[in-house]
């Protein structure tokens, strides 16, 4: 069966297409060349005047695993529903800080997103993460496994194990947990907090292991690089949320000796100490450094005003943030000699000096980083705001007048401390397509996603061009997932189940010898039970695993 999408205006940065009118042919879920005249075209959609992009990819969103589920359990007040399922299809449901798995899939696809990546999967929690994702319909998904605070790794580093041993362990973890990338959260800090260390900077040692955050970053970024997976090490820097933390962030950019690193939710790491309140924007310094350091990519983690919940692996910093919890309660955990978590509900207020400035800092970074291939659109869902606020965020980036109107409503002192109004830039559709599609696919290593070339998976979103970009991006005309029409006029019309993307580089299976010994001595589950099989993910016929092994640089 061949489907023709004709006359659409394509925004396809992977192929340099900026509003080019072009037809797309789809067969068996893939984009194909124009078939010969003898072949039958079964379906035609006339998209004259419509904006056509690949399905969007959220490269950092907490959509699965323990933290999110703890947030659901902690916050019954987020859901005022009596019927468990009554909310599922309502178009303007407000409670998306803790969506159900079904809502997650529905709301993403209804905004034209066809994939989302859980960025903080603990290896021990991998099975639950994949189970939740298995109950998340429509979109593709994947995970970054968290390392760098686990005692096995820290022991290796402390013992000055050779890089090969580290690489094998990292690769083993990718395989066992069905991940596509590796994340490190507050390098060394989550572990340090378990030893009652309350702060850890880049060049400070974890007191027990006598290794620094820099040592950890160096080792893990090298492992990821040498294993050849596409996704650079995903780094949540030390000192999240602390005034003056921008210096840690700037120094972190140099910690990998030029090897690729992705600094995540960088807004939360771009704070200075100027002014009466000793809290200021360091967006300019951070953006300048990103512009200069070509090995660095970042996503913003924009905050937007309203009630949400922050869910992080960073127990050390979330313990401090728990004093600011709203409502006043939080769940913190030390977890399995691997890491930890902190779930802290939070209400960002536009009249609060710090919150207002956080909002401005995020936007300043977006507008000051020059290359849309290296800066990504995220709210660190749900930490800065629920992902359902992306259309609003896109409007803030594309519409200076709207942005300035919003700015004028902020806390007065915060306004005085931001240069946002002097930033004239307005993102173009081409740049939005870059940061939310082409660049995200390239970063993660999804070579057949994020673009509209022949051979790509037919994940395609069609919008009506509207001056109100929030309205435009809230409600696509059509969304095709693997060639099937699943959304029409912003509503799901068919439920399908996406794939799980993974990367499984080769490694020396001898690594299991020491790991098994360690597990028998110190852990409390059998090593083999940590491993997630492809069959577990394919359970119920709802999922499948796509492996992107060693595809870096290939096309």
């Amino acid at each position: 069966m061949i489907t023709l999408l004709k006359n659409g205006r394509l925004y396809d940065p992977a192929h340099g297409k900026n509003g080019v009118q072009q037809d797309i042919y789809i067969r068996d879920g893939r984009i194909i060349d124009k078939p010969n005249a003898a072949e039958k075209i079964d379906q035609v959609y006339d998209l004259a005047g419509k904006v056509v992009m690949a399905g969007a990819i959220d490269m950092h969103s907490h959509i699965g695993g323990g933290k999110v589920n703890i947030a659901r359990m902690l916050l019954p007040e987020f859901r005022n529903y009596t019927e468990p399922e009554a909310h599922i299809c309502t178009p303007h449901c407000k409670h998306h800080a803790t969506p159900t798995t079904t809502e997650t899939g529905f709301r993403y696809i209804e905004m034209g997103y066809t994939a989302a990546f859980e960025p903080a999967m603990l290896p021990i929690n991998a099975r639950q993460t994949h189970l939740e994702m298995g109950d998340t319909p429509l979109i593709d998904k994947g995970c970054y496994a968290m390392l760098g605070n686990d005692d096995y790794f820290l022991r290796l580093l402390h013992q000055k194990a050779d890089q090969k041993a580290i690489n094998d362990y990292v690769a083993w973890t990718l395989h066992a947990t069905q991940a596509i990338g590796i994340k490190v959260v507050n390098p060394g800090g989550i572990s340090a907090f378990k030893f009652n260390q309350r702060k850890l900077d880049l060049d400070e040692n974890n007191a027990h292991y006598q290794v620094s955050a820099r040592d950890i970053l160096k080792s893990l970024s090298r492992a990821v690089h040498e294993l050849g997976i596409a996704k650079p090490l995903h780094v949540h820097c030390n000192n999240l949320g602390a005034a003056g933390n921008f210096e840690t962030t700037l120094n972190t950019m140099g910690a990998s000796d030029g090897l690729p690193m992705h600094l995540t939710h960088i807004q939360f790491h771009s704070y200075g100490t100027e002014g009466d309140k000793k809290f200021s924007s360091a967006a300019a310094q951070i953006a300048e450094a990103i512009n200069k350091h070509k090995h660095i990519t970042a996503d913003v983690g924009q905050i937007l005003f309203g009630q949400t919940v922050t869910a992080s692996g960073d127990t050390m910093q979330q313990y401090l943030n728990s004093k600011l919890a709203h409502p006043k309660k939080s769940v913190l955990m030390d977890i399995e000699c691997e890491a930890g978590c902190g779930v802290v509900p939070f209400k960002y207020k536009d009249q609060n000096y710090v919150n207002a400035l956080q909002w401005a800092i995020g936007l300043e970074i977006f507008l000051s980083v020059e290359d849309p291939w290296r800066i990504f659109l995220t709210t660190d869902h749900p930490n800065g705001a629920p992902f359902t606020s992306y259309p609003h965020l896109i409007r803030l980036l594309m519409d200076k007048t709207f942005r300035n109107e919003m700015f004028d409503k902020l806390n007065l002192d915060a306004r005085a401390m931001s240069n946002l109004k002097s930033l004239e830039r307005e993102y173009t559709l081409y740049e939005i397509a870059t940061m939310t599609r082409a660049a995200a696919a390239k970063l993660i290593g999804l070579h057949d996603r994020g673009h509209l070339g022949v051979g790509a998976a037919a994940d395609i979103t069609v919008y009506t061009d509207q001056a109100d970009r929030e309205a435009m991006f809230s409600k696509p005309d059509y969304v095709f997932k693997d060639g099937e029409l699943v959304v029409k006029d912003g509503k799901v019309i068919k439920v399908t189940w996406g794939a799980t993307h993974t990367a499984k580089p080769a490694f020396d299976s001898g690594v299991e010898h020491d790991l098994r010994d360690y597990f028998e001595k110190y852990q409390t589950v059998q090593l083999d039970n940590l491993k997630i099989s492809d069959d577990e993910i394919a359970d119920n016929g709802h999922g499948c695993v796509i492996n992107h092994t060693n595809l870096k640089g290939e096309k």
Partner: protein
Amino acid sequence: MSNNTNMLNATCPACGLLCDDISIDGATANNACAKGIAFFSQAVASPQPLISGKQATLEEAMKRAVEILSQSQRPVIAGLSTDIHGMRALTPLATRLKAGLQHINHASLQRNTQAMQSAGWFTTTLSEVKNRADVIVCIGTDIVTHNPRFFERFVWVKDAMFTDPNARKIVYLGGEKLDTIHGREGAWILPSRAADLPDILAALNALLLNKLLKADSVAGIAMADLQKLAETLKQAKYAVLTWAAKDLDFPHASLTVQQITNIVGTLNQSTRAAGLPLGGSNGDYSINNVHAWQTGKVLPDLQDAKPDAQVWVNSFNAEAPPSFSKVPTIVLGNTNTPKMPWFSHADVFIPVATPGLDCGGTMMRVDSSISLPLKQVRDSNLPTLADVVRKLESELP
């Protein structure tokens, strides 16, 4: 059990610890505790569907169940003794029937949930206990009644990374009929009734906050002992305060759970400490988690519900009678159910496979975050709960 001489690794779902070091060798479940042995040695007793106690085919039983559910205005699905996959199948059935859901352990689940939802908490997991805990306070519980291998697997171990396992201090604070032998000779026992714990914990927290108390004792515990306990906790590098919600069986016990987690909060201002809710059975933690991700909420408590029909799911254990008596009852469950004294109330019985015995499965450990695969250890040809529920759902009008 088959006479297969090959050792088979298994995971035991008999309590919340999910010991996954069990090896099944013929009829022997090596490493298993008494609860585990009872679990692995249960017979396939009555693999036939029954209608009002009389043998029936699966189709007939299914038809009768559909009749009962079709006539019901306010059905409930209760018991919910199953694993994650079973619960994933029950959620759509509940939606379809507009049925309430209630786990057999709803009362103890509520105690923890209410405490967490009121004030949050700081908890830990079993590997952290094993490698770090230097002081373990068992509050109102001996733990082993619920989790028999707790001390063997996580306390008196040969190797721990950050503490000397043999030097750990075990404290039993309150509780009735405690089996304290597993705390070993050095254990410090501060006896009181469980119901007096609110007063004792309030005093302990006050002492930790350096407040002066003008009393010589609290509920029979000398103030000097409480002061010593406060000092022990302050000096600990990683104190673990543990409880089993089932043992806190007195009014407003959720406030006592909150008192425990408040003490953890006080300690964490200067040293490190964590709470650890223990217990767990019949898949309670797994079911609560699945319900949370599928509906956005924890399992409800239907204590005041007046259902007119119930589906009783008891895959793991046949003994407990259904939550609601005197309503038409469909049992989807354990093959030992028809032997139980309460069984004459059941209108329909459809046997299902027990996860971890007759079929594989997935469950979450009591400390959450850790989910483990259950293995099939025998061939019984029983349908899974998910098979039965999906068939039932497809036959509803």
